[in-house]
């Protein structure tokens, strides 16, 4: 276990005459035993950041500290950390046992101790019976476990994971995700996890660092990035289906601010902790998650009129694609499969879950009052959806 501090990290790549800015002034601190995720679209700099922590790339500027020690110039083999690669990088000419034990052998551990430790880690990820196999004899899921076991074998302070689940199929990914989280809870290493999948980041991490174009957007706990996204990028990146963004005009009164969308308006309390930015702008972008839109049949006065364009059933829920006066919206509805393209509906947007963003900067101006999981009225005994269905 160890803590990591990145300070003012800056890195660019040059290929031919083009220069690509990969990481731009990144500051990040990871506590002892914390599980953090670096998340963002491809090319956002998350993998480069991980590789700089590993020592596989050197930052152009900035310093990296592990437990207070400056490791910026330390080569990877002396940093005392392990990594699980996206393609696993299991050595094909070694057996599973040799693969897992390779780090121990380099460290000069006695043969008997090596064998003991290999068995121990293999048991941890449930591949004890595969120790004499060669990688080519393993399935994708088994290879992934070998890679994880190898990373844990040396009992390093820090474990880095570079999209370790992206080569697994959907079912296996869900299962392995849970196992990885349990593994972390049991052994408690500091772990840094890179992924493009916001769901993995949300479910696994203590804190999530969201990056875009080399710049850190927000670094906070999953519930915070989900409920109080710092800006438009975070708001639309985190959460699936993606948050709806609708241009709106604001009209400020004494105690309330009126939000107008073509065909719908609402009134928000003015001032108070919900307002983060200036309260005097006249235009903003309304953000509302698909789950926070309620869909009613037919057109009703005071509700946002829309037409169903597509329905995607996902099992017990369905994703409705809607057209509201030329704007494409998405709503997620539970327990209903009877919509069809062309149906006229009207929408309620939950004010408690509404967000406002600045039109130019994209910074959050306002977050609805209700925090999922922290609303007193519903927290402990309120009817969840499943209860309602019981």
């Amino acid at each position, binding site marked *: 276990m160890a803590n990591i501090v990145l300070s003012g990290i800056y890195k660019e790549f040059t290929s031919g005459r083009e220069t690509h800015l990969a990481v731009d002034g990144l500051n990040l601190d990871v506590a002892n035993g914390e599980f953090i995720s670096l998340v963002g679209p491809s090319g956002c700099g998350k993998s480069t950041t991980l590789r700089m922590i590993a020592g596989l790339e050197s930052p152009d500027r900035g310093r990296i500290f592990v437990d207070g020690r400056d490791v910026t110039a330390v080569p990877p*083999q002396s940093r005392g950390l392990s990594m699980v*690669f996206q393609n696993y990088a299991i050595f094909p000419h070694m057996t599973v046992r040799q693969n897992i034990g390779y780090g121990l052998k380099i*460290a000069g551990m006695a043969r008997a101790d090596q064998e003991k430790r290999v068995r121990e880690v293999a048991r941890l990820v449930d591949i004890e019976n595969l120790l004499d196999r060669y990688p080519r004899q393993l399935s994708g899921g088994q290879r992934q476990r070998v890679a994880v076991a190898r990373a844990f074998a040396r009992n390093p302070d820090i474990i880095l994971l570079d999209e370790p689940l992206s080569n697994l199929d959907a079912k296996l990914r869900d299962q392995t995700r849970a196992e990885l989280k349990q593994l972390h809870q049991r052994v408690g290493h500091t772990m840094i996890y890179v992924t493009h999948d916001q769901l993995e980041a949300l479910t696994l991490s203590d804190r999530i660092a969201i990056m875009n174009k080399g710049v850190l957007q927000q670094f906070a706990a999953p519930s915070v990035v989900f409920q109080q996204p710092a800006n438009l990028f975070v708001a639309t990146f985190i959460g699936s289906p993606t948050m709806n963004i609708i241009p709106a005009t604001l009209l400020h009164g004494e105690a309330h601010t009126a939000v107008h969308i073509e065909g719908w308006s609402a009134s928000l309390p003015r001032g108070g902790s919900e307002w983060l930015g200036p309260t005097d702008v006249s235009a903003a972008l309304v953000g509302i998650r698909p789950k926070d839109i309620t869909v009613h049949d037919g057109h009703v006065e005071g509700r946002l009129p829309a037409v169903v364009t597509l329905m995607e059933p996902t099992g017990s829920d369905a994703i409705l694609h809607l057209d509201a006066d030329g704007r494409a919206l998405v709503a997620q509805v539970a327990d209903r499969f009877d919509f069809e393209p062309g149906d006229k509906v009207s929408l309620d947007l939950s004010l408690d879950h509404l967000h406002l963003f600045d039109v130019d900067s994209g910074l959050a101006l306002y977050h609805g009052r209700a925090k999922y999981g922290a609303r007193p009225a519903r927290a402990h005994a309120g009817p969840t959806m499943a209860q309602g269905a019981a």
Partner: protein
Amino acid sequence: MATTRFLSKGLNYLALAAVCLFFMFPMYWMLKGSLETAPELLSAHLLPGSISSEAFRELIGQASFRQYFFNSATVAIASTIVSTTCAVLAGYGLARFKFPGKAAMSRGVLFCYMFPSLALSIPLFNIFYSIRLGNTLFGLMLTHVTLSLPFGIWLMWQYFQTIPSAFRENAALLGAGRFRTFLEVELPLARSGLIAVAIFAFALSWEEYEFAFVLITSEASKTLPIGMTQFVTRDYVVWNMIMAAGITMAVPAFLLISFLQKYLVAGFTSGGLKG
């Protein structure tokens, strides 16, 4: 439809059979000749009249033949070791390190490979004699390295490039230094390439004639290819012994192929091994 497919398959088989015949016939002819007595051979029948090991026995009985064989083997093995080692190191350097002029380097290596070796033989002769390496097996070995190294470097270079860097990086993160990584991770992964280079270098040296002809004049340092042509330039041509010598020369190739063919076939395809 099925008929067309069948026809196209049949035509392909026929073409393959023709190619086989084209290549195999000279070899058969040689094998046949080596097992015949001299008079029989001149009758040029397709099937051997009688089978006799006379030619082989006489060949192996000659002290000079054994000397040639020993010289050839020494030069071939030594140049294979030197050439393969250098090719692996240079190919690794080219694949792994960044430096200016890498593109020019690549052009240079290919140019060396394509450079007419005959044209090279004259200046080499010139140089070698002036530094007293003429007429030595060591000098011959060095020339063979010169001939096989460029292609060897190119092959290893290409080969090392197909090995994903994740293997190397992972070894580093497990604590292995650069040299250890090279030896325990990258070299085993490049094994097929290494074997291909070794085979190429061995074959080249084993059958090389021109340089041996130019550089070597003393009887004690002559190699098999030179020795063989002496059967021709004598007063009469001893066909069956020439054939037997040819067969003998082919034996190491045959043995090498038999032992290593699994790596050779895997050669170019399994470089990009995925964990």
